[in-house]
Structures are given as C-alpha cells and as structure tokens.
C-alpha cells in the first residue's frame, strides 16, 4: 500500500534580546553555571515577573513576517508541572490567547510552491539545563537559561515529506534571522523543533495516530527523524500493528527514535491566567511601529540580488536563505566589480569551511571586504586562482588582509617573461620524452609540461604567459 506522511512542527526559537523575559539577567549563552541568575529567574519566594517589552515586539515582528494576524489582546498563562529545570514549577507561557495566529509561509519544493499554515506564535520562557552525571546518582542544575525568552511557532499539519519540512524550517529560520528576532544558532539551542508525525494510506481523509519527536536541534536531525519515524510507522502498520500516541526521542547516532516511556498521559498542566502579569494590548499605532521596523525579507532580497548584482537565481536563493550569509555577500559585492565571483566563493570555499568547522555564518572569521579584495587580486591578475585558495586558507586562520598575505608569503604572479622563459627552457630540456610526444602529435603532453613549470614557480607564474612561452619555445625546436 502507498502511504502519505503528515507532518506538523512546533519550533522553539530563543529571542535575541539582551535581557531575560521577566528579569534583567543577561541572555548571553554560556557562562559559569548559575551566574546569569537572580531571585526572579530562579523562582525564589515572593519575587515577581515584569515582561520585557522587546519580547513582545520581537514576537509580533516574527508574526508579521509569517503573515499572522496579531492579537490586539493577549495574555500570559501558567503551565504547571514539576521538573528540576523549572524552578517556579510552572512555565509562564500563553494558552488560549497567543500573540499571533493564522499565518503561513510559502515554500518551494521541486519547482512547485506550497503554503504551510502557521497556527500560532506565542511567547514563553525557556527552562534551565540539567547536566547528567554519567557515573553517579545525581544531576546538576544550571539556571542560566531559565527565563531566556522564547517564541513557540506551531504549524498546521500541512507538510507531506522531509523535503517540505526542510524547506519550511529553513525558510522560517531565514525569516527569524532577517527580522533579528533570533540568532538561530542551533548548536547553542537557540532554535529547536518538535516534529508531530502520522501516516495514512494514500487517499484516506482521516489523520492517523501521531507521535511527537521532541527537541531536534539540527536540520539534518529533523530530516532524518522525519524519514526514520515515517518508515517506522509504516512498517508498524504493514505488520498490522497499532501506532501509540506518545512522545519519542530521536537518537541521531543510531538513526532511530525511541519511546520516552514517561507518564505523559498523567500530565494535566492546569493552565490558568498568570495573575502576576497584565494583559498585552497591541494597538494599531504600536503595530505600525513594529511593522516599520521589519527589514527586507528573504524573498524580496533574493529578487533584488538577481536584479542588482546580476547573480543567477540559484545563487541568489541559496545566499539569501541565510541572513548572515546574505549580509556578508552584499557587503563584499558592494566593494567588488565581480559579484558572481563573490557568490561562487561563498557557495564554494566559504560554505565548505563553515561545514568543516561547524561554525555559523555569523561567526565567520573573515571580513567581507577581505573576500572582495581577494577576488580583485585574482581579477587584476596579481595572484592565480590556485594561489587564491592558499590565501583564503590563511585569511580564514588568521583574519589577515589578502594583499598583506600575498606580500608576506611572496605569492604574486610572476609576469616577468624572461624569468618564465628561462624556466620553460629548463623544463623542456629536462623532459625530452614529453617534448617528443608533443612533437608526434600527442597534444596532451603539453599539460604535463605546464604542470612542471607551475611546480617550478610554486604556482605563481602567470598561466597565460606560461602557455604562450611554452608554445613559442616548443615551436623553435
């Protein structure tokens, strides 16, 4: 039988505010355990929360960018449960009146455009961190993340494949970056997703029983979890088994999900309106102000890049997918006459480096001006393309200016014809066999000779000059 996979996402994004949602402690990542804390975010008796205004503005910004209706009246609620990472024993969140609802994002998969519905976006606080002691019997509790503001974005069950999930997630991520709502650093937990997934025989109207896979924190894990869980559910159904509604965890190393076998069914969160906080009213004037603070979004920017910098549609889509990358491109391209070369570098060497090092584009160790100077050095024939790769490596490691590197390492192209000619003659006399091959019509041999010359000059010889001089000298023979 053919099955259809039905997927919805719940995405948590930490907002890029300076201070926490209800107190003045910093949201900065890291820090010694329990040093970004005060009585408010550690749930001490008698303290009270006061809502950070920027949290509301960022959430509304995200809502507007995701085509949501913004609630003129919303409130915060308490979600009650016991867990050591939750010092108040309730999470302040939003229940029945979220800040944003009924939005959508358009994604493009295999050339066709699809709308994915966004049910709601609400504000809430993050929990602390538990560090498990592998050997002993204890866990350590660090409340630094407690009270870092989050938005939770809940989608409709509109996605039908991991490709759609990937496209949606990346689109959403780029929007959150563009609006500066979140830094979206997934390895720091700034952005993470829960996947709700069910399968049904193709053509069936009713949804199947769904499972929820919690806390996926890389795009790769999301895609693999979707595919893995879909396979698992289909195989259960094909063996006439029954899908159990439950929460599962994805083990990305093993490539399979397992049941969290907790007493989920016993959960009764007893939501009720948070008495310590007042309602949030977003009027037209405030909404307009927030709207006007939203910068150009990825779709608009993509179109502009194609028109303004003349880069191919594919490049523009790729680069604008990530705001830091697009910012980097734009800063570099502005300084350059060769935007296409900049885009090639970004999509090639820069991406490779980022992937190899696991760095986020935001943390790139090279400056956009440096990349555009590197491109100029090639275009002005100061260095060869091959040498440029060496220079790029050094730039990445040291952050130095490419011109300085070229100077210091003596990497300039050798254009002095007489110097090159003497090396050409030297190579010809050292390789009589190749010369003979060439003379007998095996033109391939010339490649070998060029290679030898480049080796002698450590790649610095101007390749055009090498070709011309080599032909001249060979013809003399």
């Amino acid at each position, binding site marked *: 039988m053919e099955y259809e996979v039905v997927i919805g996402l719940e995405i948590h994004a930490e907002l890029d*505010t*300076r*201070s926490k949602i209800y*107190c*003045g*402690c*910093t949201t900065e990542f890291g820090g*010694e*355990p*329990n*040093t*970004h*804390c*005060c*009585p408010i975010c*550690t749930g001490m008796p008698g303290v009270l929360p*006061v*809502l*950070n*205004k*920027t*949290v*509301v503005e960022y959430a509304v910004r995200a809502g507007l960018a995701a085509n949501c209706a913004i609630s003129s*009246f919303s*409130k915060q609620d308490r979600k009650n449960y*016991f867990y*050591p990472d939750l010092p108040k024993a309730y999470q302040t969140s939003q229940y029945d009146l979220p800040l944003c609802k009924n939005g959508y994002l358009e994604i493009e998969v295999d050339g066709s455009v699809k709308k994915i519905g966004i049910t709601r976006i609400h504000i809430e606080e993050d929990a602390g961190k*538990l*560090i*498990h*002691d592998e050997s*002993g*019997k*204890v*866990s*350590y*509790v*660090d*409340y630094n993340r407690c009270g870092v503001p989050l938005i939770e974005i809940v989608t409709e069950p509109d996605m039908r494949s991991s490709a759609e999930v990937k496209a949606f997630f990346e689109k959403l991520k780029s929007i959150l970056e563009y609006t500066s709502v979140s830094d979206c650093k997934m390895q720091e937990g700034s952005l993470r997703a829960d996947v709700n997934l069910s399968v049904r025989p193709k053509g069936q109207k009713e949804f199947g029983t769904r499972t929820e896979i919690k806390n996926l924190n890389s795009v790769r894990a999301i895609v693999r979890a979707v595919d893995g869980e879909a396979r698992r559910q289909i195989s259960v159904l094909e063996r006439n088994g029954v899908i159990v509604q439950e929460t599962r*965890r994805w083990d990305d190393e093993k490539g399979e999900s397992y049941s*969290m076998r907790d007493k989920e069914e*016993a959960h*009764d969160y*007893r939501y009720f*309106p948070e*008495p310590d*906080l*007042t*309602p*949030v*009213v977003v009027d037209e004037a405030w909404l307009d102000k927030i709207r006007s603070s939203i910068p150009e979004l990825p779709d608009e920017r993509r179109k502009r890049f194609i028109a303004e910098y003349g880069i191919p549609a594919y490049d523009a889509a790729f680069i604008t997918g990530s705001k830091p990358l697009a910012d980097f491109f734009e800063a570099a391209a502005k300084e350059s006459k060769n935007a296409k070369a900049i885009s090639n570098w970004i999509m090639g060497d820069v991406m490779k480096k980022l992937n190899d090092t696991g760095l986020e584009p935001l943390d790139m160790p090279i400056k956009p001006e440096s990349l555009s100077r590197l491109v100029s050095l090639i275009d002005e024939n100061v260095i060869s393309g091959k040498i440029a790769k060496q220079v790029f490596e050094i730039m990445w490691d040291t952050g130095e200016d490419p011109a300085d590197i070229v100077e210091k390492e003596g990497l300039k192209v050798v254009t002095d014809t007489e110097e090159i000619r003497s090396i050409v003659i030297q190579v010809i006399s050292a390789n009589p066999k190749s010369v003979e091959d060439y003379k007998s019509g095996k033109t391939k041999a010339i490649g070998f000779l060029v290679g030898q010359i480049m080796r002698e000059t450590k790649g610095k010889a101007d390749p055009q000059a090498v070709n011309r001089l080599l032909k001249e000298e060979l013809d003399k023979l």
Partner: protein
Amino acid sequence: MAITKEDIERLADLARLNLTPEEIEKLTGDMETIINYSMNKLNELNTDDVLPMEHVLPISNVFREDICEKSFDREEILKNAPEKAEGCFLVPKVVE
C-alpha cells in the same frame, strides 16, 4: 460531586504530595465538603452572560525595557540550596 479516595490520590500525585492513609481518609471528606459547599453555592447563580474576571485592575502593557542588570552572586543564589556542588543545585539523577 462525589470525591473518592482515588481522586485524592491522583490529585496528591499531580501536586507531588505524599499523604499518609489517615490524611487521605480525612482529606477525602474535607474536599468533598469544601467542593460541594462551594460549587453548590456558586451554581445557584446564573453566569451564562458573565465574562470571567482575572484581574481587578484595569491595566495592561506593564513592561520593562530590555536592559541588562547585574545578576546575583552565585553564592547568594545557591546559599539556601539543600544540596549543591560545582556551582549547581543537585538533584537525584533525572532519567529521560
């Protein structure tokens, strides 16, 4: 509304309260008295057209600006902890 021992046990579990059998016995009766008294009374009133009132204050939009303030010294945060180590609160191992 009848409240049973099982109800009390479930509520105590949800509220993370250990109760002795005697407490369960007594609280079952108490709860039935309180809930029945309260709800019978309140249900005398027709509230169909009444909106629930969460806040008596007619205020909204109380905010703080997004400004960082100095956090507390860790010693102060951990001072009252029953068990602590390496700058953290200690709990029995949490199984996930």
